[in-house]
């Protein structure tokens, strides 16, 4: 019996051994068992590694999806649509493969990489091409706006003379003759381009450009569409410019910018046909270029602010002289003295011009403007407090103003005197918004306010509260418009240093090596940092200065840099931007607008 019990116990023990150790034989050796456990652990490790890889691939796919959405959101031209469809198909394929765990990590990494390259290719061709077209549209509108600005002066004078003619009794002969003389002067002013007189050269230049574009042998549908678009734009531009008296310098600059655009589209067309992606114009470069052009147009409009000693205010419905005088902080006597032509002070009409004896130059002193917005001109402060800069694409379109984060419940005040012409909630993006007309074709926009404290029709003086800041980030959106052209607020806050030839450099240039004591060290003794360090000619912009370059508005530094370095080839209006990426550095060379924020 005892023997039987022993046998039963032995069987139970053996069964337990089989169950709890995973051995399928009672005769398995310890070494075999350990060997199998090792194999099991390896399999588990392998599974764990596969899981991690799948998570990474899922991340990569998420990013790819984001990129697709981005591409679609900005309405790519037809050139890229098929490519995107193909990419979508490949993405689905990868997802399926993932679901079946049928691809190994090396091939999946290669596939993801290829997909990224393809997406970059699509972004680098169709979207940029689309942007070129859109930007030319935009340029055309700006040119028309500027043309209107110049032309409106002429028509305004004609209208006013007509008005004066109808009030013969209220004007003396001398004044009338003087106005007639001025009108004759303006009429006799030669236009920049005279369509009939082709000997000027510029009309021919434009025609030559159009012919050149038309005669270009374009084999692809892409090129034809692009060049037809350019042809149309240039024809429109030619008509617009040809019939206007637009400023010669501005016109030349615009032609030059269109030349650049043309060169870019030509380059893009070449790149589409070649497989050399190294020469691609990157998306960021293109967006930066657009920011730069917008800033230039704004700067051109800003320069049209005449250095007169008065503000020209156009009477609006409901205005009276005492309210205007109060708004601008002057007395009625001062107002009368400045406007001797007004004889009946009880009778002013909508559209009349009232001269306000205040100097815009004085009111817009740069130092006081920076402090008005609470801006400390230290680079870290600027980068932290500016949420979105002029021309940046943080919202998917070029920001026409600047977004600041100011302390919650701060009083937002008018920085120039004027009349509130809009005070309402506009939409989700602008929120509570106040627009003030300051005269001289200048308007300012204060948006995303927590609350408004003024109403349409109110006059505001410098420092009057127009709203209260909310808790949100970017709680003050500010725009400055001159003659319906948005001006980069940098123009009214910082010094426009003009156009610089901007290149990029890295710590690896000239065969430098990390073991060198001077590796990453600048001429000023500081160490270089991406999105911070630039090199200039110290006689042009001194070392230690802070500069702002609108081209880089969408970068993490919002376009602000510190001059910390010099360079043997950086002389005159040249500026070298430090970057980690030698691939970007080797291809970068742009003519860009530069502002000096602060000198040491």
């Amino acid at each position, binding site marked *: 019996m005892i023997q039987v019990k022993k046998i039963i116990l032995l069987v139970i023990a053996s069964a337990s051994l089989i*169950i*709890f150790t*995973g051995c399928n034989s009672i005769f398995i050796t310890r070494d075999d068992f350990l060997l199998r456990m090792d194999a*099991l*652990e390896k399999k*588990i*490790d392998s*599974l*764990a*590694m596969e*899981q*991690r*890889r799948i*998570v*990474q691939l899922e991340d990569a796919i998420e990013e790819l999806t984001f990129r697709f959405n981005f591409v679609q959101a900005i309405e790519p031209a037809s050139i890229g649509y098929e490519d995107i469809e193909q990419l979508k198909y490949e993405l689905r394929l990868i997802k399926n493969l993932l679901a079946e765990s049928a691809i*190994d*990590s*090396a091939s999946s*990494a290669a596939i993801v*990489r290829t997909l990224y390259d393809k997406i970059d290719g699509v972004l680098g061709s169709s979207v940029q091409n689309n942007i070129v077209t859109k930007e030319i549209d935009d340029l055309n509108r700006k040119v028309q706006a500027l043309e209107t600005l110049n032309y409106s002066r002429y028509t305004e004078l004609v209208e006013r003379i007509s008005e004066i003619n109808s009030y013969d009794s209220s004007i003396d002969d001398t004044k009338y003759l003087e106005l007639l003389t001025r009108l004759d002067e303006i009429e006799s002013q030669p236009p920049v381009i005279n369509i009939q007189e082709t000997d000027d050269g510029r009309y021919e230049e434009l025609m030559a450009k159009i012919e050149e574009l038309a005669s270009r042998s374009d084999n692809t549908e892409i090129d034809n569409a692009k060049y037809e678009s350019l042809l149309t734009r240039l024809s429109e531009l030619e008509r617009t410019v040809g019939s206007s008296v637009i400023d010669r310098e501005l016109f030349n600059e615009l032609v030059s910018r269109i030349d650049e655009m043309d060169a870019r589209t030509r380059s893009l067309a070449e790149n589409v046909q070649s497989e050399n992606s190294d020469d691609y114009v990157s998306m960021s470069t293109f967006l930066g270029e657009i920011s730069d052009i917008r800033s230039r147009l704004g700067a051109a409009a800003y320069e049209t602010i005449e250095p007169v000693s008065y503000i020209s205010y156009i009477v609006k419905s409901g205005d009276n002289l005492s309210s205007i005088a109060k708004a601008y902080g002057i007395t009625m006597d001062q107002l009368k003295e400045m406007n001797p032509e007004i004889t009946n002070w009880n009778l002013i009409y909508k559209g009349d011009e009232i001269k306000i004896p205040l100097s815009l130059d004085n009111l817009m002193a740069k130092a006081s403007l920076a402090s008005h917005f609470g801006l400390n001109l230290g680079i*870290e402060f600027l*980068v932290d407090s500016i949420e979105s800069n002029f021309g940046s694409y943080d919202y998917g379109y070029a920001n026409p103003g600047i977004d600041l984060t100011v302390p919650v419940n701060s009083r937002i005040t008018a920085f120039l005197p004027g009349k509130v012409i809009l005070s309402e909630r506009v939409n989700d993006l602008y929120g509570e918004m106040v627009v003030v007309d300051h005269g001289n074709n200048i308007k300012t926009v204060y948006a995303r306010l927590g609350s408004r404290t003024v109403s349409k029709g109110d006059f505001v003086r410098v420092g009057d509260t127009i709203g209260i800041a909310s808790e949100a980030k970017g709680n003050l959106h500010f725009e400055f418009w001159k003659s319906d052209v948005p001006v980069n607020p940098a123009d009214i806050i910082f010094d426009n240093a003009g156009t610089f030839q901007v290149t990029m450099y890295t710590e*690896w240039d*000239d*065969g430098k*090596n*990390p*073991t*060198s*004591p001077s590796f*990453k060290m600048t001429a000023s003794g*500081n*160490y270089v*940092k*991406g999105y*911070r360090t630039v090199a200039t000619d110290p006689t042009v912009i001194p070392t230690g200065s802070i500069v702002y370059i609108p081209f880089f508005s969408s970068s*993490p530094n919002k376009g602000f840099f510190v001059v910390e370095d010099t360079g*043997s080839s950086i002389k005159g209006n040249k500026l070298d931007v430090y970057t*980690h*990426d*030698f*691939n970007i550095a080797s291809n970068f060379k742009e003519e860009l607008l530069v502002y000096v924020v602060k000198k040491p």
Partner: protein
Amino acid sequence: MKRLSFISICLVIVSIASGSVVIGQRYPLGIMPSGIVKVENGYGTYYVTLVKGDSELIVFDSSFKPVTIMDAVKNDGVNDIIYRDGKLYCFGFFSGRLVIIDASGYPGRWKKIDEIPTSSRLITGAFIDGRLGILSNESEFIVLETINRTILKRYKLPVTALTIAEDSSHFYVSLFYNYNTLDRSMETQKGLMVFDIDGQLSASLDIGKRPSYISIDGERLFLISYMEESLKVIDKATLKVIKTIELGRYPNYPVIQNGKLWISITGEDRVASIDLESYEATYYDLLGKGPIKTVPHGGMIYVLETITGTLEILDETGRFVETVKLEGYPVDIVFSGRDAAVLLQEDWKTGKNTGAMLTMRLN
């Protein structure tokens, strides 16, 4: 059924435990941290970080927790440090002094014990039997007897050298600036100079443009020719070039481990692994950009990438395993058990012009 349950439980436990790299603390360090030196003494293992911009030493323990900051070399503008026999030797670039720190005790008690002036801006050095071979920015090779504080030899080099290596009897110096990139001409044909322990020139070799990093393995010497973008294998006895291996643009920080030489080819976004016996080179393309240093550890290969600011992990066959976003400009990595620490020269997360030590747990 029970076996299946057992395996499932094991699988879950192992899966949880072996998740991806877990990022730990981010310790701000200061301006331009440049390298990590391992110090082992009777009290434990410590990692010393040289913060060049601030000329400070920050000491971490073996679990990468900061232990102490040494500002005793604050005014020296230290360019490099080496550890030997319980002492840290700091090469003062601004002061021209060799500062010796007794690092034999607990870091809190480490102290400066000597300062030896040299009247030259010191770059780096190497040790043989208490004699320190030093390179200076004044194109000198200096042999210093550290015990009696005597400069035994001051040899004027043709150009400034940046790298020195040693074996038991000789110092090997590579003349980095032998090629002028401005006028594209050779300053000197010499590229490698060999000195004995007394600082006497034993031999020299014309080796090409901008010779840089030197690694020594037995009787062979591996020299990276920076501008010729190649690795030259040199027989130490005859100073003959045995083999030249093409690498690519900006080859950096060679690391010898387990019979292989790992080189990060910064300008080509790939890593080269050279078998030290067959000299067969294997290249691994990376997903990240700008690899600067590659370190094999625990069956994995860890690659620091400066342009993308990432740590890319490959398995021992070079297959991609994982990418870790560092959000900074990495320059060095050290391991301690399952922990690792990456030295960042710029901390992109803070946006400030300072570096950081980023710790992580490897599962």
